């Protein structure tokens, strides 16, 4: 196959992806606007993904807060500015690492599960059965997962922020003898409420990415069990790439002026 031909094929596939994704988002928004929401299912999804992700989110953010503290405390004490460590840890946690690490963990855990579940429903004709009964798979499956993620990911991010700051505080004290009071004072000086809100806004956008990519990969599954495996992998890969890219863009837009 010629290079041009392959390029053409890739372009068409990409445009198809965009088109499919756009109509999925469009239909979800329409469902939301018309308040066609299955609350019970949304609640179950939110509960499961929240409880299921909590421990791993807490652990990753705890260690991340600790390592930032470790690295910055070492440097800061050398230069005699140990009192700034609290600010450094809180600043990076709330604005960048909290939302992003939480999203990456949830993409790996929940995005993949969504793609696998919906994908296997495709190959066992359950999606066709829904359509055949006049039920929209988007309303039935996508919207509850979207809402569940949109609620739980910001919430998980709040926990992640807190635990990572606590971890940082502990290491700062144990390792560089920076007392918690000065750690907190520095944190409050470096980070405002506005930063927290912006971080949560990121989490909300990441939630949409994970939900839409997971559902879309699931719904476009082709070809049996192997197809489900491919859908699952690509759901994780695509959402993680999109999360990193979007994180940069959002940081630029939200914090770029500072």
């Amino acid at each position, binding site marked *: 196959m010629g290079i041009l031909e392959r390029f053409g094929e890739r372009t068409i596939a990409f445009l198809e992806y965009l088109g499919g994704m756009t109509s999925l988002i469009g239909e979800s928004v329409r469902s939301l606007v018309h308040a066609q929401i299955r609350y019970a299912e949304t609640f179950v999804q939110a509960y499961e993904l929240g409880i299921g992700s909590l421990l791993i989110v807490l652990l990753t953010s705890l260690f991340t807060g600790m390592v930032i503290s470790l690295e910055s405390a070492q440097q800061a004490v050398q230069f005699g500015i140990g009192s700034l460590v609290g600010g450094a840890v809180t600043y990076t946690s709330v604005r960048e690492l909290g939302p992003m690490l939480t999203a990456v963990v949830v993409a790996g855990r929940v995005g993949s599960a969504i793609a696998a579940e919906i994908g296997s429903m495709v190959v066992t004709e359950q999606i066709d059965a829904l*359509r*055949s009964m006049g039920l929209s798979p988007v309303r039935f499956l996508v919207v509850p997962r979207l809402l569940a993620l949109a609620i739980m990911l910001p919430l998980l991010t709040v926990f992640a922020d807190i635990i990572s700051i606590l971890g940082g505080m502990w290491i700062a004290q144990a390792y560089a003898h920076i007392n918690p009071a000065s750690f907190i004072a520095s944190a409050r000086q470096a980070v405002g409420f506005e930063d927290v809100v912006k971080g949560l806004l990121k989490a909300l956008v990441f939630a949409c990415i994970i939900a839409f990519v997971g559902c879309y990969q699931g719904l476009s599954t082709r070809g049996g069990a192997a197809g489900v495996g491919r859908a699952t992998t690509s759901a994780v890969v695509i959402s993680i790439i999109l999360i990193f890219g979007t994180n940069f863009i959002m940081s630029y837009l939200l914090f770029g002026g500072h």
Partner: protein
Amino acid sequence: MEPTIYASLDDVTLSFGEHVILKNCSLKIVRGAITCIVGLSGAGKSTILRLLDGLIEPSSGHVYVDGHDLCHTPERDLVELRQKTSLAFQFAALLDSLTIGENVGLPLREHTALPDEKIRHIVDDALESVGLRHVYDSLPNELSGGMLKRAGFARAIVTRPELVLYDEPTTGLDPIVTNLITDTIVRLREKLGGTAVVISHDLHSIFRMADYVAMLFEGAIIAYGPREEIRTSTNPFVQQFLTGSEVGPIPV
């Protein structure tokens, strides 16, 4: 009196990539009658039902159900039509996150305002009619293939649709349940005047219930007519199919 047509395929061609499944295929489904479709495995029988349910679109030609052209109709506009039709899938296709009772009651819960007890009652009746009353609270993965198939059947008839498409409703079932299902299909037609399309390999039950029989071969309907006409047909393809002979025009 000329029978009225409820649904039809009009010069339908359908291919998956290079592979042509249906070629200039036309078929009329008479209102209020049971039409059985027979044909070799892989001939495209399930595909015809998927076309009639609007799940797939033909590459060319038209599919009509109750006067509506299903082709190029957006999914949203099919919703209303789909409440009047239902498809009993070949492999049941129950939602595996719901219990059997919830599965069977799903179309009622979503499309009607009936109270829960009433739905429970209708679902129990539907399950009873396929001999499955005791599995209301079981999950699909706890049932055998034949039980799933019967539950799928119950889900398809629970709303009393005008058109029911049955994809091999009796394949793989024991003779007693086979009769039960066949009788249920006939009873629904008699009581409610509904239209049915049944795919089956079971000649015995076909000739018990069919009003019309259509035979699909190499992508087109090669024989169609009232039951007796097909039973006594001299068409060599039909003859060979009905006798199950290895010699004849159908290559083995």
